[in-house]
């Protein structure tokens, strides 16, 4: 839908400018008289919301940076100084911290929207890939930002994530030391993370410009997934979608403000209010909520990859987990080529819709849950732990049964003391643990993309589709009347 320019410079200054730098023309053609499908719903307001989030993070971030000190002895105190002493510092910091979460909330909804309506399919592949790059950059930015307050979670989160690179065979250690500027997370790492945390949002900004550019070449997709075929299918962006976006944004901001003013730490972790200590690990390290599903995939791989029943190992479990984690994001990049269906929108794809809503979405949420819990947490157990001690009393085999190892060991000691030979053995019950759930969900996640998506596209019979966007939005009677005209 790259369209003819409709810009008409009015005042003399506008004409003068238009001959020299036609930015007003660009704005007019992109955001005022841009033909947009008439049937966009509220899921389409997240683009505008995300732009707001980026601007808000940059505005609050730059003001925080005026007071923040990127030094391992002062970082924590400087954040407390922002919270207690700087005028409105608490508001700016909470807005920035909550803003990061809201940003990710919006980006996930935006991405699920794209997946549901098939917005990644031709001719929007580049648009989709640019979005994936923005998502990656956001994750890097969010991760490094979380390190800056230099609390316990900052420090240990950074330690765990940078150790991932140490898992790469042979070159892992040098890479990790190069990234950290030392043997462990410390001041050099904090300094460079701050530098990059300042830089990356502006790289994201550049990517957003490309993303919008790539959007405006084919134009918006829409809930039917049908191409707009002419003016009867579209309305100008302004005022129709400027108003809709603004309304969606206000609702979003209400939720945002609700968190900032009433639950600013609800999405964070209390351990991050303990200053970083490189000698003590918190009992339970978790990244921020928006990284949890990927963290879960990382931890769910606990087996080596090699030839079964031999000692030959090609990839160790630790590195395999790292590969799986990166692959879970990498697979998004090739999504346009994994989907074999000709129909874009899942509105008309009953089978795919089922897999997306009933299998894939819950799997993603489930992975988030697994990521937040300890891997060894038992979800289901059949039987009990029992501890046995076997010995011969004369000719007769006697077995003692205990509920705890301590009780059994105690009994064994007294038997051994009187010269009895005792054999011990343990009975372990069947346990289904968090890590097992994580593995199952990881398999579901990948299977959705690699198996279900290509296969369903081939075997599924799509539902009948409306002939045009106009037909889909008009009431049935007037649509047929319009068709009869």
């Amino acid at each position, binding site marked *: 839908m790259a369209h003819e320019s409709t810009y008409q410079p009015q005042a003399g200054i506008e004409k003068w400018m238009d001959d020299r730098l036609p930015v007003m023309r660009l704005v007019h053609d992109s955001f005022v008289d841009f033909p947009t499908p008439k049937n966009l719903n509220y899921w389409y307001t997240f683009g505008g919301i995300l732009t707001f989030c980026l601007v808000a993070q940059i505005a609050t971030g730059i003001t925080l940076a005026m007071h923040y000190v990127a030094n391992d002895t002062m970082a924590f105190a400087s954040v407390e100084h922002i919270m207690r002493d700087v005028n409105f510092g608490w508001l700016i910091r909470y807005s920035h911290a909550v803003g990061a979460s809201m940003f990710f909330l919006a980006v996930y909804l935006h991405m699920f929207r794209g997946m549901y309506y098939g917005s990644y399919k031709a001719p929007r592949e580049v648009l989709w890939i640019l979005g994936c790059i923005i998502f990656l950059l956001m994750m890097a930015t969010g991760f490094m930002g979380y390190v800056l307050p230099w609390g316990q979670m900052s420090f240990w989160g950074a330690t*765990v994530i940078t150790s991932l690179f*140490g898992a790469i065979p042979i070159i892992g250690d040098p890479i990790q030391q190069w990234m950290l500027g030392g043997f462990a997370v410390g001041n*050099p790492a904090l300094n460079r993370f701050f530098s990059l945390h300042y830089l990356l949002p502006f790289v994201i900004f550049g990517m957003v410009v490309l993303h919008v550019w790539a959007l405006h070449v084919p134009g918006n997709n829409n809930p039917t997934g049908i191409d707009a075929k002419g003016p009867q299918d579209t309305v100008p962006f302004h005022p129709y979608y400027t108003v809709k976006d603004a309304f969606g944004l206000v609702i979003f901001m209400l939720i945002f403000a609700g968190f900032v003013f009433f639950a600013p730490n609800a999405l964070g972790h209390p351990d991050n209010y303990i200053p970083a200590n490189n000698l003590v690990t918190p009992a339970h390290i978790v990244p921020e909520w928006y990284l949890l599903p990927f963290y879960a995939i990382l931890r769910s791989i606990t087996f080596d990859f090699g030839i079964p029943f031999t000692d030959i190992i090609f990839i160790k479990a630790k590195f395999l987990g790292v590969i799986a984690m990166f692959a879970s994001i990498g697979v998004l990049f090739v999504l346009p080529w994994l989907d074999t269906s000709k129909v874009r929108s899942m509105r008309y794809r009953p089978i795919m819709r089922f897999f997306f809503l009933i299998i894939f979405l819950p799997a993603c949420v489930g992975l988030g849950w697994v990521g937040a819990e300890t891997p*060894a947490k038992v979800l289901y157990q059949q039987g009990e732990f029992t501890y046995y001690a076997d010995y011969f009393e004369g000719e007769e085999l006697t077995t003692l049964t205990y509920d705890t190892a301590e009780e059994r060991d105690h009994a064994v000691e007294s038997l051994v003391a009187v010269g009895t030979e005792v054999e011990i053995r343990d009975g372990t019950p069947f346990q289904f643990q968090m890590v097992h759930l994580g593995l199952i969900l990881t398999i579901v996640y990948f299977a959705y993309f690699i198996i279900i998506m290509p296969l369903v596209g081939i075997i599924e019979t799509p539902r009948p589709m409306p002939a045009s966007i106009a037909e889909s939005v008009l009431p049935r009677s007037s649509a047929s009347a319009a068709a009869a005209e």
Partner: protein
Amino acid sequence: MSGSETTHPDRRDFLFIASGAFGAVATGAMAIPLIDQMNASRDTLAVAQIRVDVSQIPDGQQVTVEWRGKPVFIRHRSARDIEEAREVDWERLRDPQPDEARINPEHPELLVMVGVCTHLGCVPLADQGDYNGWFCPCHGSHYDTAGRIRKGPAPENLAVPEWVFVDGSDDAVIEIG
């Protein structure tokens, strides 16, 4: 090259190739310092060795010192710890190593290890876990009284740094690194 009538290499071709080559070399040469500045700086490397008096650690106790920004556990093992570490059929462990390979044979009670879990880098807790050694709370790795991985996701034993008794200290002071 458009606009050029000659087919022979001329002055412009020469300048084009020469300046292009210069630009490529300059970019490559500048990339080295720009990348290398991120490696550990000289002051970080300078504090890479430390000395610790180990004679005062009570039997069965451990001290934690900082070395290269990481914790190092120095443990004075009890007789029972040593016995347990040696009873194990070590060849069948995930990272097979006999206890003797992890200590100074003249001082089997002294175990010096980098206190960084070989899984993803947390600090394991002493006197915990299923093997009376160390337990990593992050993802549940259990280490025995020789610091060998016995259970959980960690791939390797806790690392033993290079260390020696300082000459003339009468086996009281060790140097790590």
